[in-house]
Structures are given as structure tokens and as C-alpha cells.
């Protein structure tokens, strides 16, 4: 080696190779250090932004998990609820529960008189409070004729005031809650009749115009139905297509064309799939609009390319020796695929599927086209009931002017993220279960 170097420099006093190597070492290590430093920097920056995102969302949203309630001694007077005494469900459900709430409030603040002031007083309570009483009476008719202390939902303005989102120092003109009302709230707090309790409404109610009555349940159930159906439709179709294209289809111009098109479909803007769904599924096939069923069909179209591409990559990574081994003992091509290749490719396919599903979970645009942006109060009971999904619900709330929806938007994002984490965790566990070495 040294001889060669000396020959190359034409017999002049040779520079030893090791000296040249040593001279370049410093530069090479410096380059390595720079690269490592940039890498660590990028990771830290990324983590920082994730931390900021989470801190912001949780900071804004955690208050939504508590809701202000006011305790009132309610007199379930038979004269108001059921003057005839028939105890028929029809009568009970139509009774004037609002009067019960108002009477109880008036009893608490007997000094309040005059039309305007009384109306202000009534506005302490949520429009959902009478509904709460109705549900109680319907569940237990024995309550009629008794008096009970009941925690009722406060209005969203009161909730915001208690949570400190409405500034008491602002002049009364520019404030949603008047001085008089603040006085009442303070009295109630002093008496221990006003407190923040865990917000079950948020998890059990559907959408509502009133922030204090709005919940995530409808969107959550809608998302679950939609995703389950999407998984049910897309996974078998995608795995089947990948298997056929990768292992069985002849390699010719047609299959090349199909491959190019699948790759292109993965990059098509999702709203186009929404338009397609509207035209084909709703207008042509008559699938009911706004339902998880049609949503899932559209999202299936959208996720298929992603899963197919990932599945084909997973199939390609299975060593050909496994196929040869199976064929060599006389397994048919289908047996080879299903007994040996598919189990080995499954972890990769599941990863692709979960990426596709995560994409589908966060998708809003195509669903707008098929009516899943509708304002739906009821929690869907099936896949053909009108429903909405989490991201659409978040979008709708973020668009609402009431202050109470700000924290609910963040809380809904938290639920969405939790949903996503649970999904990914399941995928990781499934991968672990299926993963095999070869």
C-alpha cells in the first residue's frame, strides 16, 4: 500500500497514507458532530412544539370537564306537574317544569321584583334545567308531592363567570353578566348552593346550541360507527387487492397502469372523494345521507390507496425463500400466500391500516359533502342514523360564538387525540402479537 503511494507520487519523498488519513480525520469527525447536533436539535424542536400544543389544548380544555351546578330546593308540586292526578306519561312529560325551577329561584331570592330583574334571575339557570327535572320525575313518579334539593345546570354565562372566563373588572356595559347577577352568584356560592361538578353532560349529550348542554357523545359514537365500518370495508378489500396485484396478477401494462393509478389516488384531495360519494353513493345508490354508512363508504375510498400501498410494501418485504419453501413442499399458490406470506406481511399491513384509519378519523372535508356536518342532537343508534363525527363536531364548535364552546372545542380535541392514541396502541399491540422473525 505504501509502495503504491510512493509510486504514484513519482518517487518523491512519500507522504505516508496514515498521515493523509489522520489529517482528514478532524474534518470528518466535525461533520459527524454537526450532523448529530442538527438531529438532536430537530428532535428537541419537534418535542417542544408537541409540548406547546398539548399544553395549549389541555390548558384551554380541562375546565370543560367541570360544569357549574346550582342547588335548588325543588317543590315537586302535584298542582303543577299533574293536576288531574292521572300519572300518565304523556301528562308528566308535558308538565311545566320551568315553573318549578322559577318558583324555587324566586323562593331563594324573595326580594327580587319587577319584570326585568325576575327575567335576569331566571337566566341563572340553564334552559336544560327543566329537562333535568322532567327526567327525574319520569324515572320516579314517587317524587311528586315531595320537596328535594336538586343540583341543576347553571347557564353557560354563569359557568364562564365561575371559571373566571368573564372578567369582573370590566365595566358592566361591556360584560355579559350584570353586577346584580354577580351578586346573586356570590350569595349562592356563600350558601354552598353553587359548585363545579364533574361534567357528565359532556360525555352523554349530543350537540346543542347551549354550551352547557352540548356534549361529545353523538360525535364520538358517530366516529366509532364510521371508523368500524371503514375498517370493515377497507381492510379486506385493500389486503385482497394488494395480494392479488403483488402475487397473482401478471406483470404487464395493465397492472402497471393500475399501480400508477393507485399511487395517484393516494394523493387526490379528500374533498374530491366527498363529491364522488355524493354523486355515486347518495344520488345513484340512494344510501341515506348524513349517516355513518355513507361516511364510511367515502372514507373507505380515501383510505384504500394508503392501505394497498403499505400492504404491497409489506408483501414485498417477505423473503422469497419462504414462498419457495412452501411451493417446494407442494403448497398451492393460495396456500402459500395465506399460510406463510400473509402472516409475515401482517404487521406491515396493520401499520398501513392504522395510518389509513388515523387519516380517516381526522378527516372533515369529504364528510361535509355527504351531509355529516348536520346539527344532530340525538346520539346515533345505528349506522343508518344521521350522525356527525368528532372532527366535524370540533369544527362546528370552533365556529360557535359562545364563550362556553371555546373550552369544549379543546376538550373535544383532547377526546379525539385520546381516541387516536387508543387506536395506535391497539395497532402496536396487534403488531407485537403478529410479529415473527425469519
Amino acid at each position: 500500500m505504501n509502495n503504491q503511494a510512493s509510486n504514484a507520487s513519482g518517487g518523491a519523498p512519500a507522504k505516508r497514507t496514515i498521515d493523509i488519513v489522520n489529517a482528514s480525520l478532524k474534518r470528518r469527525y466535525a461533520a459527524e458532530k454537526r450532523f448529530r447536533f442538527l438531529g438532536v436539535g430537530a428532535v428537541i424542536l419537534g418535542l417542544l412544539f408537541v409540548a406547546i400544543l398539548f399544553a395549549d389544548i389541555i390548558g384551554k380544555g380541562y375546565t370543560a370537564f367541570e360544569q357549574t351546578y346550582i342547588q335548588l330546593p325543588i317543590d315537586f308540586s302535584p298542582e303543577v306537574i299533574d293536576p288531574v292526578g292521572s300519572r300518565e306519561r304523556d301528562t308528566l312529560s308535558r308538565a311545566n317544569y320551568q315553573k318549578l325551577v322559577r318558583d324555587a329561584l324566586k323562593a331563594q331570592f324573595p326580594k327580587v321584583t319587577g319584570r326585568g330583574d325576575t327575567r335576569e334571575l331566571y337566566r341563572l339557570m340553564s334552559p336544560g334545567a327543566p329537562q333535568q327535572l322532567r327526567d327525574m320525575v319520569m324515572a320516579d313518579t314517587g317524587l311528586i308531592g315531595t320537596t328535594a334539593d336538586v343540583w341543576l345546570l347553571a347557564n353557560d354565562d354563569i359557568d364562564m363567570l365561575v371559571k373566571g372566563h368573564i372578567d369582573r373588572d370590566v365595566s358592566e356595559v361591556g360584560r355579559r353578566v350584570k353586577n346584580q347577577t354577580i351578586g346573586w352568584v356570590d350569595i349562592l356560592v356563600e350558601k354552598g348552593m353553587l359548585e363545579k361538578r364533574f361534567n357528565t353532560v359532556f360525555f352523554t349529550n349530543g350537540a346543542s346550541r347551549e354550551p352547557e348542554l352540548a356534549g361529545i357523545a353523538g360525535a364520538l359514537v358517530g366516529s366509532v360507527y364510521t371508523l368500524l365500518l371503514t375498517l370493515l370495508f377497507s381492510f379486506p378489500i385493500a389486503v385482497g387487492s394488494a395480494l392479488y396485484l403483488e402475487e397473482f396478477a401478471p406483470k404487464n401494462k395493465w397492472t402497471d397502469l393500475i399501480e400508477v393509478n393507485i399511487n395517484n389516488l393516494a394523493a387526490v384531495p379528500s374533498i374530491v372523494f366527498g363529491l364522488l360519494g355524493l354523486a355515486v353513493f347518495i344520488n345513484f345508490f340512494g344510501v341515506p345521507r348524513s349517516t355513518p354508512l355513507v361516511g364510511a363508504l367515502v372514507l373507505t375510498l380515501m383510505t384504500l390507496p394508503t392501505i394497498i400501498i403499505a400492504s404491497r410494501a409489506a408483501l414485498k418485504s417477505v423473503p422469497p425463500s419462504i414462498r419457495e419453501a412452501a411451493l417446494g413442499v407442494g403448497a398451492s399458490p393460495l396456500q402459500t400466500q395465506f399460510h406463510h406470506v400473509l402472516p409475515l406481511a401482517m404487521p406491515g399491513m396493520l401499520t398501513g391500516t392504522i395510518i389509513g384509519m388515523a387519516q380517516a378519523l381526522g378527516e372533515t372535508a369529504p364528510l361535509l359533502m355527504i351531509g355529516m356536518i348536520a346539527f344532530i342532537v340525538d346520539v346515533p343508534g345505528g349506522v343508518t342514523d344521521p350522525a356527525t363525527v368528532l372532527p366535524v363536531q370540533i369544527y362546528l364548535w370552533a365556529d360557535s360564538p359562545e364563550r362556553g364552546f371555546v373550552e369544549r372545542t379543546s376538550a373535544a380535541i383532547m377526546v379525539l387525540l385520546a381516541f387516536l392514541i387508543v387506536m395506535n396502541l391497539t395497532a402496536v399491540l396487534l403488531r407485537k402479537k403478529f410479529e415473527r422473525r425469519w
Partner: protein
Amino acid sequence: MSTTVEEVSQSQSASAITSADLEKGRTFEGTIGDITSPDARMVCRDVDVYYGDKHAIRGVSLDIGKNEVVSMIGPSGCGKSTFLRCLNRMNDTIPGCRVTGNISLDGVDIYHKKLDVVPLRAQVGMVFQKPNPFPKSIYENVAYGPRIHGLTNNKAELDELVETSLRKAGLWEEVKDRLDQPGTGLSGGQQQRVCIARTISVSPEVILMDEPCSALDPIATAKIEELIDELRENYSIAIVTHSMQQAARVSQRTAYFHLGDLVEVGETDQIFTNPSHKLTEDYITGRFG
């Protein structure tokens, strides 16, 4: 310094030989020696294989007899593996591969249009160059073939078949206590014997071996060679090997392939002591290859 120059000149002369051989190959006159076997199982006549435009093997005719080991030797790329893979139609899986000529197993044309390759591959088993056990337990590896073909009626019969196969492969004593462990966790030589056990579990007529020892150490190789000799009693074996010593040790007949032609066939002793063709002599005396 001086050694480097010598090496270079040597490699140049080696490449000179091969390009000259290419010319010779084109005017190839025919196989020397007796291609037939008195008790032939597989009969191949005028087999040509094309990979797309490339003519990989030309007009090869060879018999594989009962209870004999036929070894195929030759420099890399001479088509011996290609020929071997024709015998159980493994070449079907390679896109663009075309086989012409006539190959029959016990008088049945295996390239007949209506022939089903699945039973053919059960009859003509194959052991590959790299040990390729399934990523499943040792038991499952051996039981897979009998299971898909439905060779046994119950678990006890299957257990017995797995045991006899592993015994024949000389592996039973080593793995009998850990049949449920993954086959991929064994050593290379053991893996290759699992693959042999897997092949013989479906009782094939012919076993094809494509350089079965090339990834193994000498001790594992010796075991496999011993095994091949034992298997000869029940099966016909065709083996491709890069090791001439191995061919000399295990086979009764040897076929020398060169650039797609079958140059010479004969009794192993005769090929290694008194080859007729100049190319065969050059190869076995280590002039090139």
C-alpha cells in the same frame, strides 16, 4: 507489489479463458458420455430454458435413475441450478422464464399443459441453497406438507410421521425435546436438516438439492453428506454443488455444465479421474471456475 501484478494478470487470463469458452460454447457439438440411466426415474431430453431473450441452457438431456445421486457441477452461471429447477417446475415462478423440450417423471410429461404442479412438487421435493425453515415451530415445519396434502388421519399419525422424518434427517435426537420452538432458532446445519425433513415428510420420489451445504460449516456439511448417502436408498437425488469434493463424495454420476451446455456426463469416478472433455478437465483440475 509484485504479488498484486501477478494477481491482476491471473485474473485477466482467467477472464480471457471464459470469453474464449463463450466462442466454443456456440459451436458446441454435443454431450460426451452416457446420459442415460439403466433405471431412470426422470428423463430429460433436449431441454432449453430462456429467461426472456437470454438462452440459459441449451439442449440438455439427462436421466436421473432410481437410488442414485446425480451431481451437477460447473462454474457459476452455467445453468445447473436452472436445470435443477426445471425438474419440479420451480422456474414457473420466475417471470419471463420459458422451458422447451421434454422432461418426464416415471413416463409422465411434467410440462404437459394439463399437468398440475402441486402434486408434482409433492413428488419432486426440493432443498434450497439457503436454509429456509418457516418462521414456525420445528414440528409445524415438518408437519406442514403432510397437513396440506392430508397424508395423515389423526394427530398420532402426524406425530409419528414428523418423528420418522426428523429421524431420517438425523435431527430427531437433537430436537425431540424442543419441537415447539421456532425452526429459525436452530443453527444453520440444523435448519437445513429441518428443511430436508420437511421435504421427505411428504415422501417424494425425487429430491432436488440446490447447493444444500454452501451456507454450512464443514461439520454440518459432513452430516448432510452422510444423510444424502442414506437417503439414496429410498429416493433419487439430484444435487447441484460448487464443491467438487462433495460431488466426488456423495454422487454416483456427475454431470458437468458449462455456459448452458451439458458438456460431459459419466460415472463420478471416471469424471474426476479421467475426464474426456478438455473443459471438464480444466474445471476439475482448478484451472478456472
